[in-house]
């Protein structure tokens, strides 16, 4: 693990380090058990197939599903694409309306846009200022043409938790399938596909201390959800997803789920303590810092803070030793302000200076304290140089200023 304090990893929503216990479980499947159809003769070994089925059970268990409801994929992006395009395409003749939300992950939104080009109608629900959807509005938006509601469990940028059980109930009552992108939620908050009436759920391994290139889609059997496969071929995963399964990655994913299920309660408490320490540390030393998304209805490992009166790129340059993200990793190469923050009504200047701080299993108190210091120093340094900060200190309302056009 990274113990080098020259660089502090605070980007757990982007990707998590593979847990050493997961690595340990995977390695034998890269070596003696790897792709070896004869490992059944190995006195201590399981066959690759058995290992995959054990993993499938471990994944099912963490969300209270049946192992037969787990379809292994290459990651949450594939799961989201498969769920949304797969269901919409399969039921296309009967129903042609999907409801999602403006703050969903890009792969959900892009899947929906792709379907719109094919004539499917998509409603993008707005969110309240705290990032949570309006349940009444959701209910009113569902029509007899609606086939699917896709609402993420936890937002990747602002960490807010949507009222999944309530959404599930509305969908079940209305006879509409409910898909949730739970890539950021599994292992962090309790999820139960039956209690929450979830019909489809996307899971990612590398967001929960498992390997990259691995994920799953939960597909309910009763009442049965059917979908059109995206990848056809040998008919693996009950025809829903063809392609040879990567045994070691399946094993690693399963182990990651087992660990998360076992340790979720203690781990959440540990992470929440670190997050509170970070938040308090910043708020005690800096003013004009805003938390994006509901401060309480969020996963313990996420903070999304905006720093007024600093300049975004300058801030990033000033905290080079902190590996944090501005906006989601997938789109962070672009300098456009985050569409998630825009949906919350965050002003453009503040959106530009937002940082996503992702705290996780291996974060230490020492790293948190170091990060607070680095961040406070950088913000103070930038503010000293800022004429806007000076004006604000003098009590000038910046919004009242008529800027000259150049």
């Amino acid at each position: 693990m990274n113990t080098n304090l020259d660089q502090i990893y605070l980007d757990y929503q982007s990707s998590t380090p593979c847990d050493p216990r997961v690595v340990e479980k995977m390695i034998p499947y890269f070596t003696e058990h790897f792709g070896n159809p004869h490992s059944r003769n190995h006195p201590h070994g399981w066959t690759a197939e058995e290992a995959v089925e054990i993993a499938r059970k471990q994944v099912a268990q963490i969300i209270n599903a049946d192992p037969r409801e787990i379809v292994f994929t290459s990651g949450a992006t594939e799961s989201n694409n498969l769920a949304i395009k797969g269901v919409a395409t399969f039921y296309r003749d009967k129903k042609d309306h999907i409801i999602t939300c403006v703050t969903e992950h890009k792969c959900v939104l892009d899947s929906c846009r792709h379907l719109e080009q094919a004539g499917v109608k998509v409603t993008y629900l707005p969110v309240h200022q705290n990032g949570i959807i309006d349940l009444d509005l959701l209910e009113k938006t569902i029509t007899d043409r609606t086939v699917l509601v896709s609402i993420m469990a936890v937002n990747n940028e602002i960490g807010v938790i949507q009222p999944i059980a309530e959404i599930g109930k509305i969908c079940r009552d209305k006879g509409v399938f409910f898909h949730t992108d739970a890539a950021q939620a599994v292992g962090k908050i309790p999820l139960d596909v039956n209690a929450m009436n979830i019909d489809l759920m996307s899971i990612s391994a590398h967001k929960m201390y498992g390997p990259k290139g691995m994920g799953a889609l939960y597909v309910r059997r009763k009442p049965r959800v059917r979908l059109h496969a995206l990848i056809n071929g040998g008919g693996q995963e009950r025809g829903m997803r063809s392609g040879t399964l990567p045994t070691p990655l399946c094993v690693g994913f399963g182990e990651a789920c087992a660990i998360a299920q076992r340790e979720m309660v203690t781990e959440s408490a540990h992470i929440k303590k670190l997050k509170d320490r970070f938040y308090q540390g910043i708020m005690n030393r800096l003013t004009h810092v805003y938390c994006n998304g509901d401060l309480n209805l969020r996963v313990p490992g996420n903070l999304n803070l905006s720093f007024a009166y600093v300049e975004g790129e300058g801030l990033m340059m000033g905290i080079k030793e902190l590996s944090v993200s501005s906006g989601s990793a997938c789109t962070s190469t672009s300098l456009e302000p985050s569409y998630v923050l825009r949906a919350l009504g965050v002003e453009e200047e503040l959106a530009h200076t937002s940082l996503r701080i992702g705290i996780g299993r291996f974060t230490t108190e020492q790293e948190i304290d170091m990060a607070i210091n680095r961040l406070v120093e950088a913000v103070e340094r930038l503010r000293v140089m800022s004429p806007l900060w000076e004006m604000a200190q003098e009590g000038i309302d910046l919004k009242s200023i008529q800027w000259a056009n150049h």
Partner: protein
Amino acid sequence: MRKLLYLDYNASAPLRPGAKRAMIEAMDVIGNPSSTHHFGRTVRHHLELARKIIADFFEATPKQIIFTSSGTEANNLALKGDFASVIVSAVEHPSVLKARPDATICPVDSSGQIDLSRLTNLLTQSQKPTLVSVMLANNETGVIQPIKEVVALAKHHGALVHCDAIQAVGKIPIHWSQLGVDFLSISAHKIGGPQGVGALIISPEIPLRPLLVGGGQERSYRSGTENVLGIIGFASAIEAGQADNWTQVDHLRNTLERSIQKICPQATVFGGKANRLPNTTCISMPGVTNDIQIMNLDLAGCAVSAGPACSSGKVTPSTVLKAMGIPEKEAATAIRISLGWATQADEIDDFLGAWHTVYKSCSPLSEHK
């Protein structure tokens, strides 16, 4: 314990030690390759290094390599583009055939090679844009397709060409520019890399419709965080494979076939008259169905296959042999034996012994019966 013989490289090759080492080392690398911070850049560096190694091997540019989760996905990605007509050979892998149920099937001759005059006819009738998908080498018989002729015909008719090279990679030279195709599918686990990684090599100027949309990774052709470990293993396997001695494998395969035919002159090598991969043989044991052969050979410690080993151990009639005009009854007596870089002469001897024993006890042609 008895020594086990693995002669099913076409299903999945064993992981090369170098690939294993490279992946275990890379497990310590953390972060998302799309992140711009220190950790993200480090992962990105590893990823791009691997991409370069793979591109160099095929004499392509790194920009042309689109990583996927498997060869199956690479085939689906190419086939599911916006084509008005798709023409595929009758012996393609299910991931090609099933990706486009609307495709027109071009027959093959009795040797398993695509019928070029029929292809010409189909191309004349096809609507633009047209895609022709022909594999480089067949997974069951090892028969190599006349891909240069296919490309010439397709180009003449303004069609694009996809080539599934998954079984051919490493075993015969593949140079992007010499091949002249527009899309090429490759897979890691057939050449000693890990399962769960493949790639589609694309022409820089030809548009592709992504199967998976989202974060815009892989130049927006394939969204989803890259399987960095797997990709590193893939590149390492490609590098290691360059030292393989396929002439030696070819020699072993030929010895195996000759020896089997010495035991049983009626044993047929399917596609044997065509140009083939050096490691593959599809051979019959007259009068003995392949499930019986597989079971008995398995008991003797030999892992071979009755055909494509995709979804399950289920033995279904081979569509490849059917397409070659082999009667179903005869096709049901064929097994696929696929050798690898690590196969040794004594292993072939052991296999022959096992084959002979099964033949003696099961075949009505055997004088011992």
